[in-house]
């Protein structure tokens, strides 16, 4: 078992141990390494100024994805290669940087290194953006206050001969030198190489936090001064990155990131793909996991209404074996879970909606992208001719946990599929929720949405 983490930055090996591993990558870069191209603005994953590429082993090589370095901790980097704007510029400006210069894609320049890194990711694996829409979706996670984005979109589409990161940093020697699959233990940080060890550690440290993408955990640390008693990483536990369709179920391993899930469900579950498109940003989704979204138990977590209406089950692994808990039963109150101290979510099993069923997922937020929802909803309906056979409805942001709406569901079942039916259902839906007013919206707004979204559903599927 190693007692330090080993990673590379811009082709050079770095090792970290002790308390230092709890430092964020952005601070390590800026203040320890004086690589100040990476900027810190929000320290909560919401602006992208700190974007770097992290290369992880995939097959024999490295696959680079953009992440927010302000909510990545050094302990998460074990076995990776980090490329910063300084690394990208190692042989001079690359064509995309030249393009940014030409098109006035940088004004004050503070967001620019983050944009450049997110743009570089668009050119990985032989890909390149074909349309402004491609660019927008790749740059969702980067805020710019100066340019109005228009020049940046132009710059991104006007690039020829952009090298891949592998061209700048030949992967073979790095892959060779990076650790692979072995366990790490540094004080109260543990990265075991087996599930059994993970469960054992968790049992021994009931207050330990499983840190996966750290997209929630990082914000607690940076903004609320949270100091974990112990940290457990599942990165080296084999099998948790499973992602496949098994019969009429989708199986999502406990470590599967939202980005990988999004790529997978594209075309298979279009509604889920659509909601994942509006989930955070590429940087967030490259780090964050579905299990993390479930375990974080936010009433406005975007995956939950979908998991509720499809009847998803969580596979929980603990010292005494495996339990399967329906996702709806998992939440006992605001952020209280049916999860034993020694248990880990190892899999999410999602029954696939039948082709004939109508599924719609809704997310209402102040800004269309990279925003936490004010209100979420999922409606899954089975219809026979002009009659509603059955319907499942889940709302988020209207109570301490995501809610099913049993009265509304019962009301709708058996009634004609008509606008009036859904209009009449509105007041019933409102009677089933208890929204509050907060920074993301007033209770009145949410009451209105709770009714309106049913009418919207009618029009969407009619």
């Amino acid at each position, binding site marked *: 078992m190693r007692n330090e983490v080993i990673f590379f930055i811009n082709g050079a090996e770095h090792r970290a141990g002790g308390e230092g591993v709890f430092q964020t990558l952005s601070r390590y870069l*800026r203040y320890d390494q004086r690589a*100040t191209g*990476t*900027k810190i*603005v*929000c*320290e909560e994953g*919401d*602006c992208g100024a700190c974007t770097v590429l992290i290369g992880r082993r995939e097959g024999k090589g490295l696959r680079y994805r953009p992440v927010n370095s302000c909510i990545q901790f050094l302990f998460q980097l074990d076995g990776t290669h980090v490329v910063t*704007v*300084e690394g990208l*510029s190692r042989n001079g*400006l690359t064509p995309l*940087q030249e393009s*940014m*210069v*030409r098109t*006035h*894609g*940088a*004004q*004050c*320049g*503070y967001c*620019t*290194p983050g944009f*450049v890194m997110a743009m570089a990711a668009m050119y990985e694996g032989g890909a390149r953006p074909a349309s402004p829409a491609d660019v*927008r979706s790749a740059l*969702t996670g980067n*805020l710019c*206050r*100066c*340019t*109005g*984005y*228009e*020049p940046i979109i132009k710059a991104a589409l006007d690039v020829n001969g952009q090298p891949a990161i592998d061209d700048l940093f030949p992967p073979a020697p790095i892959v060779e030198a990076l650790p692979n699959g072995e366990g790490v233990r540094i004080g109260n940080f543990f990265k075991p190489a087996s599930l059994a060890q993970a469960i054992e550690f968790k049992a021994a440290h009931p207050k330990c936090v499983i840190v996966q993408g750290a997209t929630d955990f990082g914000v607690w640390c940076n903004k609320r*001064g949270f100091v974990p008693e112990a940290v457990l990483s599942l990165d080296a536990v084999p099998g948790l990155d499973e992602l496949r369709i098994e019969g009429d179920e989708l199986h999502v391993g406990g470590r599967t990131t939202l980005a990988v899930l999004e790529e997978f469900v594209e075309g298979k579950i279009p509604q889920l793909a659509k909601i994942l498109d509006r989930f955070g940003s590429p940087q967030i989704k490259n780090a964050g996991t579905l299990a993390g979204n479930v375990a974080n138990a936010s009433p406005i977590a975007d995956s939950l209404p979908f998991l509720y209406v499809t009847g998803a089950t969580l596979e929980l692994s603990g010292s005494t074996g495996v339990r399967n808990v329906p996702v709806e039963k998992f939440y006992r109150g605001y952020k209280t879970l049916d999860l034993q101290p020694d248990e880990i979510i190892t899999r999410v099993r999602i029954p696939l909606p039948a082709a004939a069923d109508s599924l719609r997922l809704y997310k*209402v937020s*102040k*800004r*269309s*992208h990279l925003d*936490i929802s*004010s209100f979420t909803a999922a409606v899954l309906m089975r219809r026979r001719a002009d009659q509603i056979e059955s319907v499942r409805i889940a709302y988020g942001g209207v109570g301490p946990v995501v809610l099913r709406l049993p009265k509304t569901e019962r009301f709708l079942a058996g009634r004609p599929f008509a606008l009036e039916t859904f209009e009449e259902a509105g*007041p019933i839906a*409102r*009677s089933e929720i208890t929204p509050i007013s*907060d*920074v993301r*919206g007033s209770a*009145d*707004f949410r*009451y*209105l*949405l709770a*009714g*309106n*979204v049913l009418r*919207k559903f009618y029009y969407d599927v009619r």
Partner: protein
Amino acid sequence: MAVVGKNVPHDSARGHVSGESLYVDDIAPARGEVLVDFLWSPHARARIRSADLDAARKVPGVVALLTHRDLHHNLFGPIYKDEILLAVDECTFRGQPIVVIAAENAEAIRKARAAIVIDYEPLEPILTIDQAIAAQSFFPDPRIIRRGDADAALANAEHILEGIFENKGQDHFYLESQAALAFPEEHGALTILSSTQNPTEVQEVIAHLLGLQMNQVVVETKRMGGAFGGKECQATHPAAMAALAAQKTRRPARIAYNKDDDMHATGKRHPFQNRYRVGFNSSGEIVAAQFDLYSDGGAYADLSPAVMGRAMTHVDNAYFIPNVEIRGTVCRTNMPPNTAFRGFGGPQGATTIESVMEEIAAVLKKDALDVRRANCYGIDSRNTTPYGQIVENNTLPRLFKELPERADYKRRLAEVKRFNESSETHLKGISTTAVKFGISFNTKFLNQANALVNVYLDGSVQVSTGATEMGQGVNTKIQQVVADELGIEPERVIVMVTSTEKNNNTSATAASSAADLNGGAAVDACRRIRERMAQVFRTSTAAKGEIVFADGQVWDAADLTKKMTFDDLVGIAYRSRVSLGERGFYATPRISWDWTTGGNPFLYFTMGVACSEVLIDRFTGEMKVLRSDVLMDIGRPINPGVDRGQITGAFIQGMGWLTTEDLQYGAQGELLSHSPTTYKIPNIHDLPEVFNVDWIEHDNPVNLYGSKAVGEPPLLMSISVWCAVKHALSFVSNGEVARLRVPATSEEILMRMSHSRAAVAQGVQR
């Protein structure tokens, strides 16, 4: 080959894209440096009964805890000297600094902050304009602009419209939060590196607060990671706190706010509440109007009176109002002092009348564009502003004709109407609005600048001015102008760090006019140098004709055999003991202003017309901008690429203010949306799906190379988006005038739709 008018890349662009450009907090720590931060008031208003710093002093790593007692003076302010840096016995806004903490590291600062014990007695705060009006809590000198007899004309008007326009504030959200570094020098002097738009103000305030002469304080600004007005006055506070720490500890001192503290502690764009009574005839022509503007100035005056002045001189926007009365009152509240923000009151004034235009159109069931055209300032008549300035070189009528044609407005308006009749799920709106933005500081004496131009022995050139670079490209424009003046390549010219050591008594880089003023001063310096060099040329070549400087060469226009390189001529001039450096000066001509008599506060106006179309989800209130067309008169741009970026950037920033940027406060005035998680500036997906930006070819003979200022005016082009929302709402308002506040968030839109549609009938039941 001239470079003015060419698309030269931003002079820092290569550094920006490679991450090499340095901002204040990127500078490596000096040996012995202390970190500086501050404890701020958690109350909007409270008496400080006692403060106990003993425990905090004992925290390991704490170097100094400083309070108002450590200041030489504690009173400053750009207009009125009414602001204190460190609270004495009463806190007047939440976020107000009380104790400055200097420590070895961030951990010690955190612990020290927690260990400071302050006994507060919370007092009833004033948090809103309404509360301020009720308490008659105003800053001195409400202002009035008056022409004709509004009362009488209103009494006779065919139609009267009354209403209130309300807007929330806007956080600047520059990506680089406030930051400064202070270095102690010999004999008590200080050098400050500050992320400020106004090095002179930082210098003046620090000298005053710390008991130094101004000549003992040097302030340098290399660049800012965005500013937008937020670093015009309010960069002074962090710089002063760092300076105080450096003075007292005799160690270099660094302060860099985090985003949350920055948003809590700094002032914002002013919330306004503008009441209006407008009289108009059946063709939509306004015959009289009364505007009563109230702004929330916050706890100290800062620039609020000047912002109000600009709001009052922009509430007419592009429209002639024969009889008019405009009152402006700045409320004193317990919010952080509100301050400059791109547009400087102009947007709040102009949005008010653009909103009125939509309402007149709704009342008369007319096309709002026709109403606007009917009221637009004329070329030869109906062309005097309420404050008496003639709108010269007026391109508004032309823009109002060309832009709707380019945008295919008429057809799309008809299409919008058809769509709204048939769609049960969505609503569309379209609106064409204008901007007429006065260029020059409203305060006359600020309209001056100086520039230092040094030509070196090898013919390369350094320019220093008081302009600060915040991304807007002012340095690039000055570089281009100097290159052309001296007839050399732009690569031979470097614009240096802005420093009070080289340029004294400079004005803030603000009011969009930094290139006009500082460029003008640089031109003055170049021309004097060129004149002397031409004399040297004549002496050494016996040239008789006009001496031309171009393409790195100097020649006699009358005899082309008399020619040498610029660099060679520099050598000859040097050996002839002729000065190759110069200080230029510029003072804006022709301007005059007096609150009682009016006058010509502006040298010229930057103008534009924009058309936006929006799509609204009837069930959620979510809004999307389908298309925006912008056509401006920005004179002859010195750098079209830079100016285009100013237009797109300002438009989107304005759109943020008008739509998604929603400052939310708790009951005690605590800012709840204090980071990008909850405060939503526009994202790349918020760009209009189709976004056409262009300008007309039109000379501006009164300004630098025929150019016009472009920093602020296009922000007001985004009012078209908000008015398009208002237009959409007019389809569901049951004959009533559709009201709308700023920002038009999805919630605001949905609530308005639901009320106006009496969808409340279906009702919010609990």
